[in-house]
């Protein structure tokens, strides 16, 4: 198991370098000049422009710039935001918990509903439940996120006034960050109503963000279950006189989880990407919104560093998925 882990970690090295390169090249490939954008409408004199270019080192060959950046990254220095003048690293960690909280809630919703939906669809193959669930999944999968988000906002915030439209918590409440997770911090603060407020802010964005992974997980669970249910060992389990609940929920699902776990891991990657749109719609102060803003400002260090850190987060998630995979599938564990 340890060797398995180490070999996985080794594969991180080329991925890491690749991501660094891509994030570096990506922002530079966009038209627009950070110095012009920074100067804004007032503009900048040619002399001052030259000075700034030298100050930021943009006059040097691109490869030298990349080398500088890479060595900086390896020493843990992601640079400083052009706009706020704060280290990218600090900004990222101030905002990341908000994105993480949203993503975790979304993936919990997606798993908690997606897996049972897939199991029920598979065990009712071709019948009413199967068709109803799978058409719903297809709709969820193909619905434009912003449209779906607006629909929910109109119904639940606009008409019913059940949930707030934006932010993480009502301005009424103020307490110190302990964990960065609003649900936990609001509980720790002991203020009455703070937790309920945090939950009501989180509900709609989580549902919106969960929609696509939920559909993907439900469909994958269904197809994995259908495959597993025709296996010989399922017939053996039934020949023992086990109840359908035990046959489907233990013998079949345990095997079906192997491909489903992979899909969940992949979903987490797309979830972080999907968070950008969701955070923008709900003004959720997370890294998604931060990066979108930085792209518009051509804030090179933030975009580079943000992309890199998100990529690392995805890689860590994939590693965790690989480990889970080993726990569920004994053929891998024992190797």
């Amino acid at each position, binding site marked *: 198991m340890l060797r398995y882990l180490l070999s996985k970690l080794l594969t991180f090295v080329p991925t890491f370098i690749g991501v660094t390169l891509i994030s570096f090249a990506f922002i530079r490939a966009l038209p627009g000049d950070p110095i012009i954008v920074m100067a804004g409408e007032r503009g900048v004199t040619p002399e001052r422009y030259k000075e700034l270019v030298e100050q930021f080192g943009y006059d040097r060959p691109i490869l030298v710039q990349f080398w500088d950046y890479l060595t900086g990254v390896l020493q843990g220095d992601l640079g400083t935001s052009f706009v706020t003048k704060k280290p990218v690293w600090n900004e990222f960690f101030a905002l990341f918990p908000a994105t993480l909280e949203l993503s975790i809630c979304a993936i919990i919703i997606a798993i908690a509903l997606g897996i049972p939906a897939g199991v029920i669809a598979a065990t009712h193959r071709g019948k009413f439940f199967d068709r109803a669930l799978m058409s719903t999944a297809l709709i969820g999968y193909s619905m434009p996120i912003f449209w779906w988000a607006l629909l929910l906002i109109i119904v639940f915030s606009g008409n019913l006034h059940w949930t707030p439209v934006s932010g993480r918590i009502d301005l009424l409440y103020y307490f110190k960050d302990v964990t960065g997770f609003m649900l936990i911090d609001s509980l720790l603060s002991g203020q009455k109503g703070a937790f309920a407020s945090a939950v009501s802010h989180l509900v709609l964005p989580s549902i919106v963000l969960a929609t696509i992974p939920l559909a993907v997980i439900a469909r994958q669970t269904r197809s994995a279950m259908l495959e597993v249910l025709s296996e*010989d*060992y399922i*017939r*053996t*389990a039934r020949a*023992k006189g*086990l109840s359908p609940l035990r046959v489907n929920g233990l*013998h079949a699902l345990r*095997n079906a989880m192997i491909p489903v776990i992979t899909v969940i891991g992949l979903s987490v990657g797309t979830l972080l990407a999907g968070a950008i749109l969701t955070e923008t719609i709900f003004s959720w102060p997370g890294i998604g919104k931060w990066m979108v803003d930085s792209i518009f400002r051509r804030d090179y260090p933030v975009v580079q560093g943000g992309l890199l850190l998100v990529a690392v987060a995805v890689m860590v998630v994939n590693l965790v998925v690989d480990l889970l995979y080993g726990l*569920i599938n004994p053929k891998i564990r024992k190797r």
Partner: protein
Amino acid sequence: MALLSIRNLSVEFATAAGPFRAVDGVDLTVDQGDVLAIVGESGSGKSVSMLAMMGLLPWTATITADEMSFDGRDIRRLSARERRKVIGRDMAMIFQEPMSSLNPCFTVGFQIKEALRQHLNLDRAQRHARAIELMDLVGIPAPEKRLSAFPHQLSGGMSQRVMIAMALACKPRLLIADEPTTALDVTIQAQILDLLSDLQKETGMALILITHDMGVVAETAQRVQVQYAGQKVEEQPVEGLFATPHHPYTAALLAALPERATTRRLPTIPGVVPGQYDRPAGCLFAPRCAKATEICHSTRAPVQGAELGLARCHHPVTQPEEATQ
């Protein structure tokens, strides 16, 4: 009273191309302690008829029977829940592919103990002891260690032993072995058959052995039932069947053996078992039968009396010499 008694069992599958009758009016009787072999070419409905009795067919199957009783109880009338109390306990089954018949995600010990937990009131320690006892019984060395093994760590022969241990967990009164050795090496085949035979004698349970192998039939069974295209075509005690097969199909099966019962495989007879689309109007074997006459092609065959092995034939074979021609 017979332990298992089936009369006129039919199974029809709903397929994309319309209904398909995989089992057509099969009778079967097994007494306590009997060893019955069911033989026949691939596709003759051997597995399907037994799976129907175990309630293990998919929902596309429609099962009809005039009688289906086990130990005096009408299986057709049992609710799904009541039936689950019988199968795996009084009536157990092992399958052709031992390697894929064990769940890859659970240890051998878990899977054996699960059968015990389902049907018997034993505590943890007793289940553990019984699981070791069972593995010992089926000849698995170092049972204590093997309990924590996963199926992919076992050979085919070992897997089949585990399957047998699992099937015997609750001391069933009937064991159905569906081609238990087809997927195994020849040397292992003999071991597993000896094991099954010994266990049957020790426990006095009834055994239904589905096989392609006439050698196995001769060694293991007391009675043989021959199936063809979903129908039972003949039934006889082993000696009688080998000496005087009454149905031309049985005769052809035996005659095609280069030296009787010395080869292991069921030989091929020219032609194939009729499928869903080419079912003859008359006797189902007529297109492949050397003795077929006009009537065989036009009219379904009658079932002859017990003295003629219940042969489903217009022109049953009566003389031993005739069969060997």
